């Protein structure tokens, strides 16, 4: 389920990029080839405008995820949520898996809080 969410998250980001490219713009062959590559690699799902976006990035310690809502910053998570103390995400996959869970909650209209039990089930590297 999470893999699906992650895949979708990355694919619709590419969708947006494509959509913003005016069709009438003159493009070089390389650009068109690159776009086609991105399109086939990225969009297995239909292109939909979604208000929430998930992205991961390197943090001062370890990894972090960001969730934006209609382009505005909403959540920035550079520590494993809910657990006592400050534990960074040790790798990009951990940050993305956790962020995908939060994204799913938001898209389902729930509060974006993650519980200790959910963190345990994500089996993050500590």
């Amino acid at each position, binding site marked *: 389920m999470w893999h699906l969410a992650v895949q979708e998250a990355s694919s619709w980001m590419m969708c947006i990029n494509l959509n913003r490219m005016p069709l009438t713009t003159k493009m070089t062959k390389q650009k068109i080839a690159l776009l086609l590559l991105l399109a086939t690699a990225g969009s297995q799902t239909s292109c939909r405008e979604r208000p929430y976006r998930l992205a991961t990035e390197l943090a001062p310690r370890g990894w972090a995820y960001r969730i934006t809502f209609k382009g505005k910053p909403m959540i920035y998570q550079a520590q494993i949520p*809910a657990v006592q103390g400050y534990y960074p995400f040790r790798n990009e996959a951990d940050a993305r898996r956790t962020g995908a869970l939060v994204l799913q909650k938001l898209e389902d209209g729930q509060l974006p809080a993650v519980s200790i039990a959910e963190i345990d089930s994500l089996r993050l590297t500590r």
Partner: protein
Amino acid sequence: MQKGKLFGWMLAAVVLSACSKSDDTEDENNGNWKELPEMSASPRSEAVAFVIGDTAYVGTGFDGEKQLRDFWKYNPANGWSQVASLPAAAAARSSATAFVIDNKAYIGTGFDGRVRLNDFWSYSPATGGWEQKAPLVGPDPTISLARRDAVSFTINGKGYVATGSDGAGTKDVWMYDPAGDKWFTRQSFGGSKRTEAVAFVLGQNAYIVTGTNNSELKNDMWVYDAAADNWTQKNKIANVLDDSFDDEYNIVCSQAVAFTANNKAYVVTGTGNSISKATWEYDGVTDRWTKVRDFEGAARYGP
């Protein structure tokens, strides 16, 4: 049981930015509200909020179905980050109260969906973790001091918890000393029993105002001198005098939010005759209220 069901999330953030004007909708000179990132489409009510240094924290509350234990901090550039949740040994709760002493927040009392609570927990941003503290217990431990919708404030490194509901309104006042992790009896609130009031501190004095009891909204306001352990009444917050200064006063409400900035106190939103977005500014020197710019978000109550 739950009355409030509105949007707790934004408020702390909005409050933090209340004194910084933005350019887009500036008018006159009576302040401006600026919208900051929402937490989610799903609302939470009866949360607690506190500020440590420059960072606002919001947590616990009620989402319409269950009591909550999560806590979040707000950073203007990045948005919200979820920090450590209230530990499993603590009940998830709403209608709790919080005060901050020496960069640690103390959160306690409240309602777990079945019973009112008297336990206290401390959060330290230095460690990112929670510690259990002494529960609110008086000299006679057989008398339960468990309550919800209390107010709290901090003066001179001591935390105070006052009023709230133990099933009915209360007026007792308790002082917490973090050095000994102990609670002490203080002079009871000078006004009548109440719940869902607000408290704020100007200078070395704490004020308690608004609130309700037995469906009656309270119009009296009292100031607490911590050194003398004494309550003194101030002017009422309704048009009760022949003088003209209170002619426009329409401040009575419950479940409002209070904060201070630049030595003035602000009481915002709440529920009175209708759910409010009014903002009132209080000057402790002159003992006068001024209506300033309305809160620009949706009218609300139940922080």
